[in-house]
């Protein structure tokens, strides 16, 4: 693939994934309903940047990340890598071409306990991506694996061990090493630290930051933990019921959130200082189901700043600052 000049590294346009579910009322007829898990989301990511994808459970952030890698097949949209739409390649029959794309985009899973095969040693787990992608001739594998283990702060002699011999933090290091094995340009990190203890969490966040500075890799960092998002991300996209409601440079959005949902999310985090002034933006009710998506702005039933227009017309993303956009008729 020859990169188009000035094309961003990753350019996601209008990505959509809907699920059809059958819902049956008691004694009633089955009715097909649509869950809009991911509904036309778009973002751009440059090399060396991190996009934090945040939102509450069910907002579609994991489905979005999985559809980018075709682990879940999207219904519509473009995934442009260096300007070329790779979605047809990922979904196509040409395995070599598909692997060529996958080699450039890798995934780190949330739970390092579940994402490593318990019967494989760490060496075997790291050999697999090298074998699948035939990234190197076999003679080079051993050194490559040793180098990878060192890169993530493990010792090469630990390669003969099995996952159960490691702590959660060490296993997540293995998960990161496995993703980096084939030299990707983009790594999708799905809640990589949320199952780890606080002191270990800081170690892994530092490792991710250091690897990015060293390798220039871009991250899509999925999390519901806004504090870690603020630390690791250069940009942030806030999702609500399958849509991006606010997106932009991380400091711009955290310093002055314009969408009321973003403001509520940020203010809901109790600051680690006792007696802090409560600046909460209170939300009404709970997240509605993605099946019964409210009309107009999907957030309007919970929004204290909702206007009559919010019930009628779904707002589009509009510039709200030099590097930020929000989808709101009445931004804060």
């Amino acid at each position, binding site marked *: 693939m020859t990169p188009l000049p000035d094309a961003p590294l990753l350019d996601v346009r209008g990505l959509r994934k809907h699920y059809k579910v059958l819902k049956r009322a008691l004694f009633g007829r089955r009715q097909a309903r649509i869950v809009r898990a991911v509904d036309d989301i778009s973002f751009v990511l440059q090399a060396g940047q991190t996009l934090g994808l945040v939102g*509450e*459970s069910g907002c579609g952030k994991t489905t979005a990340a999985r559809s980018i890698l075709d682990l879940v097949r999207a219904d519509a949209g473009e995934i442009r890598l260096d300007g070329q739409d790779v979605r047809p390649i990922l979904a196509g029959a040409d395995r070599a071409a598909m692997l060529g794309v996958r080699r450039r985009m890798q995934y780190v899973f949330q739970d390092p306990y579940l994402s490593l095969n318990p019967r494989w040693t760490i060496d075997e787990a790291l050999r697999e991506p090298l074998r699948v992608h035939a990234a190197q001739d076999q003679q080079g594998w051993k050194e490559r694996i040793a180098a990878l283990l060192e890169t993530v702060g493990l010792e090469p002699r630990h390669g003969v061990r099995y996952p159960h011999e490691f*702590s959660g*933090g060490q296993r997540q290091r293995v998960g990161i090493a496995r993703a980096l094995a084939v030299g990707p340009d983009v790594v999708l990190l799905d809640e990589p630290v949320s199952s780890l*203890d*606080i*002191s*270990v*969490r*800081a*170690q892994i*966040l*530092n490792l991710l*930051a*250091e690897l990015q*500075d060293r390798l220039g890799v871009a991250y899509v960092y999925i999390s*519901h933990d*806004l*504090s*870690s998002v*603020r*630390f*690791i991300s*250069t940009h942030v996209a806030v999702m609500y019921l399958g849509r991006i409601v606010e997106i932009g440079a*991380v*400091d711009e959005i*955290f*310093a002055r959130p314009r969408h009321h949902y973003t403001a*509520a*999310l*940020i203010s*809901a*985090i*109790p*600051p*680690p*200082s*006792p*007696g*802090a002034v409560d600046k*909460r933006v209170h*939300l009404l009710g*709970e*997240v509605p189901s993605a099946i019964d998506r409210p009309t107009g702005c999907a957030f309007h039933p919970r929004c204290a700043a909702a206007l009559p227009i919010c019930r009628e017309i779904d707002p589009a993303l509009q510039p709200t600052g030099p590097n930020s956009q929000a989808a709101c008729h009445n931004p804060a």
Partner: protein
Amino acid sequence: MRSIPVSAADPAPLLAVEGLKVHFHTRDGVVRAVDGVDFQVAAGQTLGIVGESGSGKTVSSLTLLRLAPPPAKIVAGRVMFEGEDLLTQSDKRLAEIRGRRMAMIFQNPATSLNPVLSIGSQLTEILRWHTGASAKAARERAAELLALVGISDPVARLRQYPHELSGGMKQRVGIARALLCEPSLLLADEPTTALDVTIQAQILDLLADLRQRLGMAMVLVTHDMGVVARMADRITVMYAGRVCETADAVTIFNAPQHPYTRALLESVPRVDHSYSGARRVLPSIAGRPPDLLHAPPGCRFHDRCPEATAECRQVMPREHVVAAGHTVSCLRRGSPGESAP
């Protein structure tokens, strides 16, 4: 407003845990999960117990009601609650105290409610058992409690089953269930960890409001420094089965003494702090907590501690008062040593 912090030397605290040791006798050996823990809670006060997994915070709180499952074994200590030692009471007496004087809310509302019983029967059962209330009176009281925890249309909810409620609603039911008999102490083990942040904020508001209105004391077990800052009057920091430091919340956050408390507070990224521009490095604690099957001699934190000396590797520090209501277990802060057990 917070209630006035009561000093640790309060003459008759509601709850006083003294020298508690809970060990797990496994095939591989003895795991010293809780190894000599002391803390007090005054009436109406909230004590936050913070620590990472394996620190012994959950086992300590479960042991208060003798709920820690086998192979946990209470090896030593006392749990003085309202004038009686719960560890020596009969099972019958303990059943009278559980849910009535001291009640518990659990981390996962999805698994702590019985899926095949209606909300109403789960709530009224407790009342009828403890107070002998009539079915009608119990239902009225249950509906009243559901309204108190902010559940709309409570009478209709009594007929619903747990699967019909959202996670936040289930946790509200769990709180209502704990409050039915107006206990003087509420144990909450990570009550909001399974919830989304906006729902967590609602549940914390509810707990803060209820404790104020009912004058109830609370033991809040959590790993979240933000939650404990928002809720606790006093904080006990645990590490590897031992208490590192206890003080009022403001002191723990603004003037922590124990190296572990300091490191723990620094290692949490902050949502109100910009990390761009500067080199992104969080102060982190190297290594990981010790395996309690082979607990190291000396201070449990010594191999991760930047201040450790040769003495710390040998001698276990004992709790030591550094200021009124502020105790620290650290040889470098003047704690006396304890001879190995």
